[in-house]
């Protein structure tokens, strides 16, 4: 099939050499098989933090825990080990893929570069220590851990931005004046999606179309969460449209702009006309107290849709995206359990936050 597509010349202009889809997708599927199963989380909930550390040391995180055990302990050790594992895993994806596939994965993983830059700027904004900043760094993108930790060690945000003068996002970062952080963050996010769509180009082949659909669903769900948060706290300012990302699949920008001026109740009524309502209808109503259930449900929907996409076209980038999401989810669940236990949340509260 791929051979036919290549003969037709429909592979797009950014094809750089031969892509090893069969090898990468099979390997990634085997890696997905090693992720923690659903049944593991209830067991983890009954463990103490030291037991959880031992448990993750016995599975995929052994090397990370061993490496970091000298420098950190307890919850910090788990937190750093999880971040390190995430970075190592995603770098592995870049190492085992070739050509066009490698290009698309690296473009997708640029979100971690954006994440790291945002974390460092936030850290500098609130005078966090270098260690505190490093705790949230996931060096899974193009910026290496060494470079990112050097950035985190810089004394002021001006130095951070000056060190990033060669990066693609410098044109946005140079407008940062120490007060407009949220504006810069929004622009970075929007620019990331714009660049990603540019990298995908005009999707001609079925796998690129699916990848585009995958990204668009991502945008839809992000926008939905933003809208829920805005509406829940009664914000009806149309200027908040700046927080929304363009390019969604089923929620059009105009439609969302209209939703911005509505009250929470009217917003829910409007939402009934969207395809996502079916998934979230049973956990949202005008009197809902918190958004945790809706956000968890949307994350579940995200994972479910990624999995179904990956079955539609097995030899494409989509199974790899599915793995990336599942891995991120595993790490976030583990972090949730550990952090929840540390601050003494009840099992019920932790369970509500988990996306299983």
């Amino acid at each position, binding site marked *: 099939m791929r*051979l036919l597509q290549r003969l037709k010349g429909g592979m797009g202009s950014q094809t750089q050499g031969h892509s090893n889809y*069969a*090898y990468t997708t*099979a*390997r990634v599927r*085997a*890696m997905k*098989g*090693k992720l923690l199963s659903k049944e593991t989380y209830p067991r983890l909930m009954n463990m103490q933090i030291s037991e959880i550390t031992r448990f993750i040391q016995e599975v995929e995180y052994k090397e990370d825990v061993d490496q970091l055990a000298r420098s950190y302990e307890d919850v910090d050790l788990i937190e750093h080990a999880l971040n390190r594992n995430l970075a190592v895993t995603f770098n592995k994806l870049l190492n085992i893929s070739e050509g066009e596939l490698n290009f698309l994965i690296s473009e997708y993983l640029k979100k971690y570069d954006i994440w790291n830059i945002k974390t460092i700027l936030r850290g500098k904004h609130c005078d966090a220590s270098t260690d505190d900043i490093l705790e949230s760094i996931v060096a899974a993108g193009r910026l290496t851990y060494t470079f990112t930790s050097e950035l985190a060690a810089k004394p002021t945000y001006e130095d951070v931005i000056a060190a990033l003068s060669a990066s693609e996002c410098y044109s946005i970062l140079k407008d940062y004046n120490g007060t407009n952080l949220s504006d810069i963050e929004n622009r970075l996010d929007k620019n990331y999606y714009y660049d990603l769509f540019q990298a995908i180009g005009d999707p001609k082949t079925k796998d690129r179309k699916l990848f585009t659909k995958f990204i668009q669903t991502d945008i839809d769900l992000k926008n939905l969460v933003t809208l829920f948060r805005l509406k829940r706290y009664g914000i009806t300012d149309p200027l908040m449209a700046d927080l929304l990302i363009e390019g969604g699949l089923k929620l059009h920008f105009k439609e969302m702009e209209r939703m911005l001026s509505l009250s929470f109740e009217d917003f829910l009524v409007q939402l009934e006309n969207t395809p996502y309502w079916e998934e979230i209808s049973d956990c949202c109503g005008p009197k809902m107290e918190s958004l945790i259930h809706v956000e968890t449900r949307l994350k579940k929907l995200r994972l479910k849709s990624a999995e179904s996409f990956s079955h539609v076209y097995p030899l494409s980038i989509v199974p790899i995206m599915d793995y990336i999401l599942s891995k991120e989810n595993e790490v976030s669940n583990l972090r949730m359990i550990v952090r929840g236990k540390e601050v003494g949340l009840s099992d019920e509260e932790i369970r509500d936050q988990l996306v299983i």
Partner: protein
Amino acid sequence: MAVETAAVMDPAGLKAIGAGLAVGLTGIASGIAERDIGSAAIGAMAENEALFGKGLILTVIPETIVIFGLVVALLIS
């Protein structure tokens, strides 16, 4: 006066060409089919060595194509 000589090819030669094509083309087809399966099997094995047996069997399944070609070649030659 020109003498026209009818060129008649030896049927054994045609058979040999047919047999050669049958094996050659099916060999290429097997190769193309095994390329992706083989690399996928190696990928899966790199993560989980227990998949070696399954991977090996799946990799050689397209070998049937060239075996059919060989059978056809033996039948016609």
